[in-house]
């Protein structure tokens, strides 16, 4: 859309929203949030950018096709799922936890990486869907 107001507002909102999405992702284990909502927020940030600056620019910011995030995210989730099986001789999806928790995020463990995988997949697939539609309009 040809509007300076939206354009500049969204260019400032984009980093903030992305930051917010990471925040939502990381705190999910302790408070409402998590990979899915976090991923949606991030996707929405890019969609907003696509609305205001046009699809091409939004794609340029991403540098690669958002679809690429899907296998990447799924790999992350998959690896965090099977790593206990491979490395620790424990059943699939068993949580492996670091000794000490850290602030904001809390305990660091394989479920966190799993959630990050979810986050990436959600961004990837939502953006693939919306960008594809926008392109075909």
């Amino acid at each position, binding site marked *: *859309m*040809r*509007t300076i*107001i*939206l354009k500049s*507002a969204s260019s*400032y*909102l984009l980093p903030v929203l992305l930051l*917010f999405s990471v925040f939502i992702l990381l705190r999910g284990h302790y408070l409402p949030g998590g990979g899915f909502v976090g991923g949606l927020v991030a996707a929405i940030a890019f969609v907003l950018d696509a609305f205001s600056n046009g699809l091409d620019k939004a794609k340029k910011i991403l540098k690669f096709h958002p679809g690429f995030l899907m296998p990447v995210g799924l790999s992350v989730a998959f690896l965090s799922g099977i790593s206990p099986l491979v490395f620790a001789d424990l059943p699939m999806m068993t949580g492996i936890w670091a000794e000490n928790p850290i602030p904001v995020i809390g305990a660091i463990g394989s479920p966190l990486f799993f959630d990050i995988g979810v986050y990436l997949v959600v961004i990837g697939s939502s953006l693939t869907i919306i960008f594809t539609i926008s392109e075909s309009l």
Partner: protein
Amino acid sequence: MNDILIYITSGLGALFVLLAAIGTLRMPDQYLRISVNTKAATLGVGLLLTASALFFLDLSVTTRVIAVIIFIFITAPVSAHLIGRTSYFIGNKLWENSYIDDLKGKYNKSTHELKGLNKRKNNEEETESKSES
């Protein structure tokens, strides 16, 4: 002291929200409704959020409330602007008692380019009214 602040902020907030609601119902055209909506509601919700920040008096809550307020204050006018201009595009007319319309005939209908004030006014017939099905 804090309690009183909560009474005030929440009370005022609720009032402003109610105001926005009544305004949205009563105002005669889209632009006025958008106008009322954006301001009163934004302020009202800001106040309500402040009330909760006051209630919890906790850093994390306060920062979040501030974040929400700032966010609303950034986004509300932007969306008001978007909706307002869209309303003009699709040809929603101004209230009959409206006083002046500087925007009339300024939009190029096909490109949505908007002219400045000094340019010649033409293509007035382009802003014929249309409404959503």
